[in-house]
């Protein structure tokens, strides 16, 4: 390995760059910009963070509305509790931290202080899945599974900058608690201009008959690229994008699966408890028998390293995805 590559790897390992979505145009801090726009129109929107404002893209909101922004320090339980109190005072708080802290550390507060009372708090969680090389302490690889167990909590895993902006607006309108995964920094634009985000709705982005890829989060970008590549190999692959993990669009998944030979799930998350489990449940409940290949992270802690290296090792890259799908097709 060259010195420059080592250098680049080191930078990525420090979690400074998620390196998501190369080769597409991008938008800088789409969440923070969308929130700042919303803040102008709605005085009830407030922002909170737990010492991660800079790293969760919320600073455009803070700079526009300093009086409506509260940094509670490194205290995620208090972050959620304070947000709950603000919601009870007719505010709509957007609270940011990393996914690992919002889930593992503040779980009881999300479950009881927010969700049990259906309070209007939106948690926006950075470093979802394998988007940092910081290792198990920072990689929220099981957050969707954990949060799925909380009644009444809406869970969003957006694909790109367009979707983050649209989802920020949609969750502000939505009554009730929300957990949204954040893609930060320069976030690529993947979805086509006509794309419309709606909470609870899956969208078919490609039609196909051999393989049906059901994907969420940034894995949809890779699913689209993989589908295009597979088509050149003579494999017809459709893509169903499922940005809302809860409430889950089980009907759309079942209908999509019924029209293809095999199903592949793709998520930036462990393959237990998240998208794959939801898809299997949806198919089983409806008696739709399809073999399901699960692309995602294994049920183990991931090491530190450069994000591209780790994503390749754990099969999240487009190339790895193509190989997995083509391999499963051959095996079939």
């Amino acid at each position, binding site marked *: 390995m060259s010195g420059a590559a080592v250098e680049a790897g080191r930078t990525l390992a420090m979690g400074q760059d998620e390196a998501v979505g190369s080769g597409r145009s991008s938008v800088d801090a789409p969440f923070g910009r969308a929130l700042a726009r919303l803040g102008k129109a709605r005085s009830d929107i407030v922002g909170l963070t737990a010492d991660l404002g800079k790293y969760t893209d919320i600073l455009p909101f803070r700079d526009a509305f300093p009086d409506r922004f509260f940094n509670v320090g490194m205290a995620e339980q208090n972050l959620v509790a304070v947000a709950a109190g603000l919601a009870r005072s007719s505010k709509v708080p957007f609270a940011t931290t990393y996914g690992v802290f919002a889930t593992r550390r503040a779980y009881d507060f999300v479950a*009881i202080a927010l969700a049990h009372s259906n309070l209007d708090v939106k948690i926006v969680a950075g470093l979802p899945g394998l988007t940092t090389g910081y290792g198990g302490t920072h990689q929220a690889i099981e957050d969707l599974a954990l949060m799925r167990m909380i009644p009444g909590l809406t869970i969003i895993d957006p694909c790109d900058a367009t979707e983050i902006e649209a989802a920020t607006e949609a969750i502000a309108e939505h009554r009730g608690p929300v957990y949204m995964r954040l893609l930060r920094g320069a976030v690529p634009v993947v979805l086509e201009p006509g794309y419309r985000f709606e909470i609870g709705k899956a969208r078919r982005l490609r039609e196909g008959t051999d393989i049906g890829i059901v994907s969420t989060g940034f894995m949809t970008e890779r699913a689209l690229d993989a589908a295009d590549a597979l088509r050149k190999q003579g494999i017809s692959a459709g893509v169903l994008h499922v940005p809302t993990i809860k409430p889950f669009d089980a009907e759309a998944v079942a209908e999509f699966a019924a029209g293809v030979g095999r199903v592949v799930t793709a998520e930036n998350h462990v393959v237990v408890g998240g998208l794959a489990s939801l898809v299997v449940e949806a198919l089983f409940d409806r008696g739709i028998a399809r073999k399901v290949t699960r692309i995602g992270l294994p049920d183990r802690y991931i090491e530190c390293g450069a994000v591209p290296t780790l994503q390749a090792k754990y099969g999240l890259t487009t190339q790895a995805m193509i190989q997995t799908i083509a391999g499963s097709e051959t095996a079939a």
Partner: protein
Amino acid sequence: MLRNSPPDEADIGALRRRATRLRRHMLTMARGQGQGYIGQGLGIADVLAALYFHELRYDPHNLAWADRDRFLLSTGHYSIALWAALAEAGIIPVEELATYGADNSRLEMSTLDTTPGVEMIGGSLGHGLGQGIGQALGLRLDGSEARVFVELSDGEMQEGSTWEAAMSASHFRLDGLVALIDCNGIQADGPVVLDMEPVADKWRAFGWETSEIDGNDMAAVADALADARARNGKPKAIVLRTLPGKGVPRIETSEKSHFFRVDVAQWDGIIAEFENSVGASQ
């Protein structure tokens, strides 16, 4: 509009009689169940009487009034005391108290916010103070003068989230926030298992204007609440030394127990003891 400040002797006498009525309600409720958190309820009765009948601004006929003062009972298992206060305040019917802890009752053994007058779901300890801070921040954003009172307990201070909240309240200069810290010396495993002293010094060190009083001395409680009205940039903490079972000698002197169980037949004796001590003190 704040009520009389400081409360005069007539006010104190009236508040003591309210506290007696709250205790009577609680004993009736506990009798129906034969068990419960009656010790804690009797201990906090004076504070709730002072709050609901002197200090808090609220409208029992308009619970959603935006400028009402908030009272958050973080220790949800003290619900027996809150139900008594809400009934006495005209927020829930007195007759409903008989359903305490029964299936399908709104008056649960631990508070749920679906019951009128309840400002938070208590019971998962360490939740109240942070929620009170959020409410106080929201009220301040709206330019409201309303204040937020959060009850918490000595055992609850062992939850780390209590201190996360404590440090942020002084940082945000929430002078309309009052923490009422019920130090009754008991927790689930018996007498307080982890030494929390010196309690008042801890709160002072976290930037709170702190007083420490006998939480069963009505004049002291009313005075401390009046002092806590100052809008001086600091949150207020009142450390309340309370006696679990206050008002019923048999419970006061029993082995300090978090959860009190008595044979249903013994309740007549307990209530007679309470009425005797009320008669002797008035």
